[in-house]
Every structure is written in structure tokens, then in C-alpha cells.
């Protein structure tokens, strides 16, 4: 009977198309909006991804990675003295204005790293060498920033250059020249500013007037010392706050700074509400369109279901037929919607905007919700058919 149930479903292409549209649109909305949501949220802890270290140490009042509260330079020595620390390096992060050649200003994320160890340096340089940061007035700019700031640059002829910045180009940070010696490939940040790397000491110069410039300390545990355990020791011995750097959302631990950053944005911004509304909208639209379409499909076939009942099909068989129909439509609708979400995501990823992260869990959740919509639709149909009297087939 299940094959016949499917043939009944696929035999009415117009109704099927309507049903699939509802389910696919619903799946698309839920998967796409969730992926953009997690993409945006993943941008909130971008520094954790771009500046790599196993343990981060901060002021005890720090709640998230974008909110650095300056430490004393002497804190570095205290951390280095904690048992289990292999090394500790200073890190400066701040938002400062960079002045372009055309006179425009651009907010950048200035990252000052230890010139001796280059701890926290970008992993991939598409141009230049990291060692050149030791030269005077030098910086490394990320690719996206190079392209963005390039549009604000001026060529030798005085005309807008419209080409990305490259090694050798210059701009100013607080009236101090910054000469580009490298272009790096890093992840973009929620704050929107390009990442500009320099040495820790030079960063002090770029942030004139700041009394304290030590934002975080990057710490490497000694071999065999688990990062979480080292965090405990650092907190116990120094009174500072220590964090692990795990950024994989489904695996991060209690001490993860990325996790704290994620939840800080979750509770302190309207982002979850905004995207949550869109996801709920997708769910309700899916239920409304699919439920209504499936209900009208059942209504149109009601006399046939009554005939099948009269011929001796139990309600269990008919219920299973309706479930097979609804779940098949759900499966195809989910496939179409998820496929469209993937296609849109691919375009988004290529353009870099808006951020798009489609975790497998998003697909599973969307799949479950679409099947839920199908189940609701099937239940509406089952209730309707169960109320049909088999004897009604004899009433014309």
C-alpha cells in the first residue's frame, strides 16, 4: 500500500509542487538563517581563531575576547612563574583609527605580538615575511583589510587606486607611519575592522596615551600539562583570569573564552532574537503551507480513502499511508531547501558576506523540524480520515 500511497502523492504534481514549495521554503529559511546566525556568532570570537595560543590570561573582569581590560606589564612575570607554564607572551589588542592616503579613516583591530617569539602571529601570509615585522614602522594587514583599505588609497597619479594594498604601501595610525611588510589570511571579525598586526612594543607607540597596553597574555603549557589545569593554577597563583582557547563550538569546555564570548553576545545583543524569529517564522510558514496543502490533498482524496476503508483497509494502514506521503514530501522538501541553503551559502562564502557556517547539527535540526512539520500535516490528515464513515461511499 505504501507504493500506492507514494504514487497517489506523486500523481498530483501541482499539489506536490505546492507541498514541496512550502517544505523547501521552510527548510531553506531555517537552515539559511541558522547558518548565518552561527556565522555571525563565530565572528564574535574571531581573535581566538586568528591569534593562536593554548591559554589566554586576562584581567579577572574580562567577560569576552573583544572587551580587553589592560593588565600591568608586571603581570607577565607573575604568570611566567606559575608552575606548568612553558612560556608566556604579551598581546595587545585595541581598536584604533587608521588614516588612509585619501584622508579617510578606517577602524582597525590592532594586534601587537611579542617580537621575539611572534606568539599569536597569523598562520598564513600570502605576501611578505613575518620576520620583517622587526623592521621599523612595519605592519602586516589581512587580505580583506588590504582590499578594503586599497580602495581608500591613492595611486602615484593622485587618482583612487582601487587595487588592494600590497607590501611596501603605507598608511598612518595615530599620525605614525605604518609600512606594510606582509599580507595575511585570517578570519574576519564581528567588529568589522581589518586585523593589523605589529609588534607589541610598536603597538604601544601606535596607541598614544594608553597607560597600560597589555590586553592578554598568551601562554603555552609545559608538555603534559592540560590547558584547563594550567588555567586553574594561574588563577590560583595570580588572581588573574585564565581561559582555554578551544573554538569548536560543539566541544568547547567551561573555560573557553570563545564560549564565554558567544554567550555574552547571546545574552547582551538582539542577534539571537532576530535570527530566532526568522527560524520560527520558517517553522510556522512551513507548518501553515504544508499543513494546509496536505490537508487539502487529504480532502480531495477523502472519498478514495473512504472507499479504501470500505474495501477493508484498517485505519492503521491508512494512517501509515498518510505518514509515508507526508514524510516523503518532508524528505524531498528538506533536500530541496537544504540544497538551496547550501547554494546560497556557497555564494555567501565566496563573497565573504554575510558569514555563513552550516554545521551538520543545523542540517540535522532542520531535518528534524521539517519532519515535525510533516508529522503535524499527516496527523491533520489522519484525524480527518479517521472521522470519515466507510458507509459514506454509498451516499454518492
Amino acid at each position: 500500500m505504501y507504493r500506492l500511497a507514494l504514487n497517489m502523492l506523486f500523481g498530483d504534481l501541482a499539489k506536490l509542487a505546492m507541498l514541496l514549495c512550502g517544505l523547501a521554503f521552510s527548510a531553506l529559511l531555517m537552515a539559511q538563517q541558522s547558518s548565518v546566525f552561527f556565522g555571525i556568532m563565530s565572528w564574535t570570537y574571531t581573535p581566538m581563531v586568528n591569534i593562536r595560543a593554548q591559554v589566554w590570561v586576562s584581567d579577572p573582569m574580562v567577560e569576552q575576547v573583544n572587551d580587553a581590560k589592560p593588565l600591568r606589564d608586571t603581570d607577565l612575570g607573575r604568570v611566567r612563574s606559575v608552575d606548568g607554564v612553558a612560556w608566556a607572551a604579551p598581546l595587545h589588542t585595541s581598536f584604533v583609527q587608521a588614516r588612509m592616503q585619501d584622508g579617510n579613516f578606517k577602524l582597525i583591530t590592532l594586534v601587537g605580538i611579542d617580537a621575539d617569539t611572534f606568539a599569536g602571529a597569523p598562520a598564513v601570509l600570502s605576501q611578505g615575511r613575518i620576520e620583517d615585522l622587526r623592521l621599523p614602522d612595519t605592519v602586516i594587514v589581512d587580505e580583506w583589510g588590504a582590499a578594503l583599505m586599497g580602495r581608500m588609497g591613492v595611486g602615484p597619479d593622485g587618482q583612487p587606486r582601487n587595487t588592494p594594498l600590497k607590501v611596501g604601501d603605507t598608511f598612518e595610525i595615530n599620525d605614525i607611519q605604518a609600512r606594510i611588510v606582509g599580507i595575511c589570511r585570517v578570519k574576519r571579525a564581528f567588529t568589522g575592522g581589518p586585523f593589523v598586526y605589529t609588534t607589541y612594543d610598536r603597538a604601544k607607540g601606535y596607541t598614544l596615551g594608553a597607560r597600560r597596553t597589555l590586553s592578554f597574555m598568551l601562554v603555552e603549557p609545559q608538555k603534559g600539562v592540560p590547558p584547563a589545569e594550567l588555567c586553574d593554577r594561574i588563577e590560583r597563583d595570580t588572581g588573574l583570569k585564565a581561559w582555554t582557547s578551544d573554538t569548536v563550538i560543539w566541544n568547547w569546555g567551561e573555560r573557553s573564552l570563545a564560549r564565554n564570548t558567544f554567550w555574552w553576545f547571546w545574552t547582551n545583543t538582539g542577534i539571537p532574537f532576530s535570527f530566532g524569529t526568522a527560524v520560527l517564522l520558517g517553522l510556522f510558514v512551513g507548518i501553515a503551507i504544508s499543513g494546509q496543502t496536505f490537508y487539502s490533498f487529504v480532502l480531495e482524496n477523502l472519498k478514495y480513502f473512504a472507499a479504501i476503508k470500505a474495501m477493508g483497509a484498517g485505519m492503521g494502514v491508512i494512517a501509515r499511508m498518510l505518514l509515508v506521503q507526508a514524510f516523503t514530501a518532508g524528505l524531498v522538501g528538506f533536500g530541496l531547501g537544504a540544497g538551496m541553503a547550501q547554494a546560497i551559502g556557497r555564494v555567501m562564502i565566496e563573497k565573504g558576506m554575510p558569514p555563513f557556517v552550516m554545521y551538520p547539527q543545523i542540517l540535522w535540526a532542520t531535518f528534524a523540524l521539517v519532519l515535525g512539520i510533516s508529522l503535524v500535516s499527516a496527523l491533520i490528515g489522519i484525524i480527518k480520515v479517521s472521522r470519515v464513515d466507510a458507509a459514506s461511499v454509498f451516499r454518492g
Partner: protein
Amino acid sequence: MSHLAHTVAVRATGVDMFFGTPENRVVALKQADFEARRGELIMLVGPSGCGKTTLLSVIAGTLTPQAGAVEVFGQRLDGLGQEALTSFRRRHLGFVFQSFNLIPTLTVAENVMVPLLIQGRPYGEARDRAVAILDKVGLKGREDGRPNALSGGQQQRVAIARALVHEPPLLICDEPTSALDKDTGAQIMQMVRDLSRSPERCVVVVTHDHRIFRFADRIAEMEDGRISRVVDDPRLLDTSQL
């Protein structure tokens, strides 16, 4: 007596059936008695509202009477639960409906296969048997077409094939010719008669169509919720009252 009992296919005795609330009661059957024999084609006739369809539904096990006994091929239906009635219909009954009730989104063969698939027969076996019976009703080569592409007469042939494909002992036909012209109706009734002619089968036809009375072995006339008389010869009926 025992010989008579052996020949009875359907027996309804003292059947009462009413609808609505006790204050607003509509009596459909009132102490109705009915009997159909094995190997015969019996027609139920009578004016609209006399209870023909209700009696047919009771015999078919789709309605349970408030009083009386119903026995079909030795099986008492009154007192059976819904599940048992459903199972009984699945094994013992074939239906031909007034409006065919062919599922338009299925092929002709798939429509015919429905009773076999309800019985749990494998798809392949069901299809083979459907194709074979469609051949018998003159629809060879139309198995994979849609019912809507067929004429009214051809659709009713499909319905007959569907009703007989699982070889039920009791064939229930509800106004089988009402949507057909005279000649097609006659052809359909001839087919019902030919295909159902068996000592182990009984055909009950509810009809208003006096043009097909000649195909009946007996005709039971109903009036006010009960059988008023049973005749062997349709010429004995006053068709102006039907």
C-alpha cells in the same frame, strides 16, 4: 431446512437502523428482513429514502444496526467489532460504487490492485492478477493509463475488475449504472452477471435503473425501511413508483 441454510448467502432479520438523536430520530430500517442466495444476482429497489443504501451498508458491514441479526456467508456481523468488520470486508466483499471511486492519481492497474494490496499481497503478484482481470473486462493494454482517460463505461469496468480481483464471495453494487447510458449500462450489467456467476458468489445490486432489472434473478422491493415484496419477474413491479 439445512439445505436452505446452505444456500443462503446473506440473511438480515429484524434489522432496525435509525439516525439522529432520540428526540430527532430518522428511521432508516424498521424490522427489515432480507435474504440473498448463493449464485444469484438480487436487486434492491425502491423509492429514494426507503432504506436501500442503509440496508446495503448493513450487509456490507460498514454500518452496525441497532437491532436485528445480519449473517453473511455464515458469519454473524452484528456484534462484531470494527476491526473484525474491517477484516471481514477485506476478505469477503467486493464493491462497485455509483461514482466508480477510482483514484485518479493511480494507474488503471494500480486501482485494481488496491484490494489485493490491502490484503497484504506482494505488489508483483497483485499486478499480475490485476492485468489478468483487466483482460477479462476488455481493458487489455489500458493497464498503465489513468482512469480519467477512460470513458464512463470503461471506468466502471475497471471498478468491476477491482471489485472482483480478490475473488470475494459477496459483490456489493451501489447504483452501478446510474452514471452510464443505456447501452453501456446493459453491457456493464451483463459483465457483472457473467463474471459473478458462481454457486459460491452472491451479487447484491442497489438500483433505481429499471432498464437493468432484467439482469436480476430476483428483485427485492423496499418501502419505508423494510422489504415489501420479492419478485422473480421484473414485469411484476410497478416501475413508476421507483
